[in-house]
């Protein structure tokens, strides 16, 4: 394999090569396609923080759950969120106990529901990265245009470049290059990652999600390790260097950057989004007077935090498979269909 020949060459001067696949969809694809096993073992492909559900904190889940317990209030969410445990159980459990929690495919579906049932309050859980935030921004805009008053958003969005800055600055992670997310980059373009090359000298490649895309992305990164770091776009069929300007404008029109709390990482400056002052009547936190609870450390011994930073692989967590399985998950990395622990459980045991 071409990749392995390059790895062999590069590893004559170094022990191993550590590339991080930032995005959860990449983690799943790399596990499912067998790439992680097929490559030379000196090439380590490490999972990153790019699974929005996985980096959501217990405190955020608890806030959503408390909201769902209010009579006459409907929590609307993407399916990924529903089984993630907070410190007082998951939204699925709240639903079983009678809370009105509805799963949708698009935030627009939530808005339609709110318009059909004006006597109830609808809160959409704004989870996701830059790929998802513009879709929620567009929905808020549509709600405003139609004068919908019973729809609001609980923002928990996270931004990818600040998380990468955190990882690149933390010496202990020793990342040699980033397989950058294809769909986040479809929205934001290439520019927001330039600092990784310029300040940190790290090879970067925006990569698609087919196994062959990923292999090509890895090859481009290994080439950069030989010739000098750069910022390549492998996923050219979807990613333009400037991204999608309309999506960016939607996002920056409705949201502003704010600090955010990441599971296992803690607070990262300017790594989240909240509604701008003009749009605050769509802010569920203000509408329902929610105080954000402080995140507590997970009591279960779950090591998702370290998994999300590529510090350990799921198999190195003592609970993996023994106590923690998809049927009885101890942490979000096992719950989410894109979580690294779920990927290793299904494909790499």
């Amino acid at each position, binding site marked *: 394999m071409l990749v392995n020949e390059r790895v062999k060459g590069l590893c004559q001067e170094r022990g191993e090569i550590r590339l991080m696949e930032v995005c959860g969809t990449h983690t799943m694809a790399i596990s499912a396609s067998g790439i992680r096993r097929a490559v030379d073992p000196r090439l380590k492909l490490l999972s990153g923080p790019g*699974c*929005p559900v996985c980096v959501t904190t217990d405190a955020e889940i608890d806030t959503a759950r408390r909201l769902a317990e209010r009579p006459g209030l409907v929590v609307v969410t993407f399916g990924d969120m529903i089984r993630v445990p907070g410190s007082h159980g998951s939204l699925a459990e709240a639903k079983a106990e009678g809370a009105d929690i509805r799963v949708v495919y698009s935030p627009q579906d939530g808005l339609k529901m709110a318009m059909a049932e004006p006597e109830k309050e609808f809160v959409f859980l704004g989870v*996701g990265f830059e790929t998802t935030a513009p*879709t929620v921004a567009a929905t808020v805009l549509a709600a405003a245009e139609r004068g919908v008053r019973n729809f609001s958003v609980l923002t928990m969005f996270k931004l990818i470049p600040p998380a990468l800055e955190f990882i690149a600055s933390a010496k202990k992670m020793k990342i040699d290059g980033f397989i950058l*997310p294809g769909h986040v980059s479809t*929205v934001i373009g290439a520019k927001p990652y330039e600092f990784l090359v310029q300040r940190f000298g790290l090879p970067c490649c925006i990569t698609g999600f087919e196994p062959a895309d990923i292999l090509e992305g890895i090859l481009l990164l290994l080439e950069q390790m030989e010739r000098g770091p750069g910022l390549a776009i492998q996923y050219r069929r979807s990613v333009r260097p400037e991204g999608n300007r309309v999506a960016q404008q939607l996002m920056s029109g409705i949201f502003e950057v704010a600090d955010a709390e990441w599971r296992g990482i803690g607070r990262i400056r300017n790594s989240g989004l909240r509604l701008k002052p003009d749009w605050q009547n769509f802010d569920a936190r203000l509408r329902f007077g929610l105080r954000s609870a402080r995140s507590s450390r997970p009591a279960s011994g779950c090591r998702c935090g370290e998994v999300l930073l590529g510090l350990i692989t799921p198999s190195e967590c003592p609970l993996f498979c023994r106590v923690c399985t998809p049927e009885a998950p101890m942490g979000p990395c096992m719950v989410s269909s894109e979580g690294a622990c779920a990927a290793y459980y299904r494909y790499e045991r």
Partner: protein
Amino acid sequence: MCLAIPVRIVRIEGETAIGEVNGVEREVSLIMTPEAKVGDYVIVHAGFAIQILDRQAAEETRQLFDRMAQAVEERRRQAGKRTG
């Protein structure tokens, strides 16, 4: 969660399109890709088109994948000759 798939646009009604994936029709908002036309493929996430698929780039990538697959096949054959 950032899953997004290519969808072919069948009809356009204002800012909304009817798209088709594997024979199933679904609604797609074109608010972020106002230049999208009937027949284009758009990359759809959570009911919104987030980009128009660049057909030329897609075609080049496909050809590259084919070449990679051929190269792998070629090597396999040669390896087979050597050992067999």
